[in-house]
């Protein structure tokens, strides 16, 4: 009886993981297809579609755009999020709880709503559709995330460390730069990498707010309109690989923080 339960639980686990990962596995597998259709039978492995992706200037420039938008918007989001977290953690503000709630609220609002709102706003303000507009959109969605991560790690035990620095003659900006930022570095990096991941994958806001030069997810969508082929699989696999790297970096920085 016990053995049956054991086998059943293993089967269940297997089924769950298959359910989650099978789409990705299929995507990656057929990106290595040697023939022109990403359907069984598997004819690879071959790297010809990766070669096709990398020689497609539209895709490569979209890839560069995506990286630019992701890194710059994440940098902005993490900087602003850190300053918010520091302000809330170190100063007594009227309605602090309410304000903190408001700042994290965008986490619960759908990207579509945020994207539409920004579209209307930028239209009204005369900001053209561009990578800059999409980047601002990504700051809007990632700032609350960075704030939440950094704020959660900003404990009271650092207050005396900052006081000590002030006591030894450090002006406020040096306290922040030489003490608070290095001490908070793991949380700051974690926020940065998670923002990168979300920005890198983000489609709706980029789709709504860019026109000619656009990000990789939007370019992939353009590609998909002409039907599935192993090239879309290949570029999808690349996106997935970068995401994995970013998530691993995020986990590593957060884990290191726990050990310390």
């Amino acid at each position, binding site marked *: 009886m016990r053995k049956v339960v054991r086998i059943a639980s293993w089967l269940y686990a297997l089924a769950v993981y298959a359910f989650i990962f099978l789409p990705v596995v299929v995507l990656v597998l057929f990106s290595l297809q040697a023939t022109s259709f990403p359907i069984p039978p598997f004819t690879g492995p071959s790297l010809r579609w990766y070669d096709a992706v990398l020689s497609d200037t539209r895709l490569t420039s979209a890839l560069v755009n995506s990286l630019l938008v992701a890194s710059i918007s994440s940098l902005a989001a993490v900087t602003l999020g850190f300053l918010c977290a520091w302000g809330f953690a170190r100063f007594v503000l009227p309605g602090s709880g309410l304000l903190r709630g408001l700042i994290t609220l965008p986490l619960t609002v759908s990207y579509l709503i945020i994207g539409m709102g920004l579209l209307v706003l930028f239209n009204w303000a005369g900001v053209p559709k561009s990578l800059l507009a999409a980047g601002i959109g990504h700051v809007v969605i990632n700032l609350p995330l960075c704030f939440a991560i950094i704020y959660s790690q900003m404990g009271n035990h650092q207050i005396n460390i900052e006081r000590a620095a002030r*006591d*030894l*003659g*450090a002006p406020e900006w*040096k306290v922040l730069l030489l003490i608070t930022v*290095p001490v908070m570095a793991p949380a700051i990096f974690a926020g940065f990498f998670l923002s990168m991941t979300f920005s890198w994958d983000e489609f709706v806001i980029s789709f709504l707010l860019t026109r000619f030069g656009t990000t990789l997810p939007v370019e992939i969508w353009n590609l998909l309109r002409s039907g599935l082929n192993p090239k879309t699989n290949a570029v999808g696999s690349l996106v997935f690989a970068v995401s994995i790297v970013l998530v691993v970096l995020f986990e590593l920085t957060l884990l290191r923080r726990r050990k310390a």
Partner: protein
Amino acid sequence: MTAPLVDISSISHRFGQHTVLKDVSLQIEPGSYTILLGPSGSGKTTLLSILGGFVTPSEGKVFIRGEDCTSVPPAKRPTTTVFQDYALFPHMSVGSNVGFGLRMQGVDGATRAAKARDALALVGLAAAFDKKPHQLSGGQRQRVALARALVIEPAVLLLDEPLGALDLKLRRQMQDELKAIQKRVGTAFIHVTHDQEEAMALADHCVVMNDGRIEDEGPPERVYHRPATRFSATFMGESTILAGTVTETKDRTSTVATPVGPVSLPGALPVGAAVVLAIRPEHLVLGEARGGVRLGTAGVSDVVFQGSFKRVLAVSVEDPSLHFIARLPATATVRPGDTVAVSCDTDQIILLTD
């Protein structure tokens, strides 16, 4: 008479509705070791924070070297603080920690390193220069914090329960070292503690605080032998407290009626005044009444062996609300349940103003 290094003038402080300091005035002499002694909630830590510039008092002023520092920020006043949790910078080496204050003053790297090494040598940690704080023990971190605060040569060094986190043996050892370091550098130290043994061992000037006020201040010997108030008689060491009324004054001697009989005291006191007397444990005599003043008889309730002496608790037969605390030699043969005569010498009775 030189001007005091620190002059605290009529400081009061409130946190919301709660008054933590009530019209406190205190003067600190250059080169002195001052201890602020009191139970938690007595306002001693708040007073230290006011001196360090972390708290601006609701009322009153703080002068350091004659300058009004009341609302000068910590960075700009000639004080440094050794925090209770040491507050070392975890991402910097010990050497960079100690050199931080000099770095803020714009001192160049080589001078900084040399001075930091000297400061570490002063606290006996010359070898730790390249280590990280987490590689050090609690006692070593304490020394680093001390070196870091001393290296910029403050006028006053503030120590917030610096030995609180150390175990007893290490605490006594660090206590001796703190005193030695203070004598060597000659900086005025102001040290907050609730440990009266620490206070007696370290202080040149002992300030006993309770409920936001200074109860008593002076050299520790004076505070111990002649405490000014009932609080300092019971907080700085233990005392047997005896309440009474003055019945007669004659030839500069007053007689006080107490529950255990009349007690004669030197000095003329107004007849009819209620007074409080204190007797230190080592001055009580149990057994045959050798002392000059008879204090009735008492039933011994507890005898605690403490190594070099025995601490004896006894309840007066004449007044069961009166508890005697006595310190007897380790060889004493009293046992719980014994009934003994209690006495002491006239000149060992302390008259409290309270």
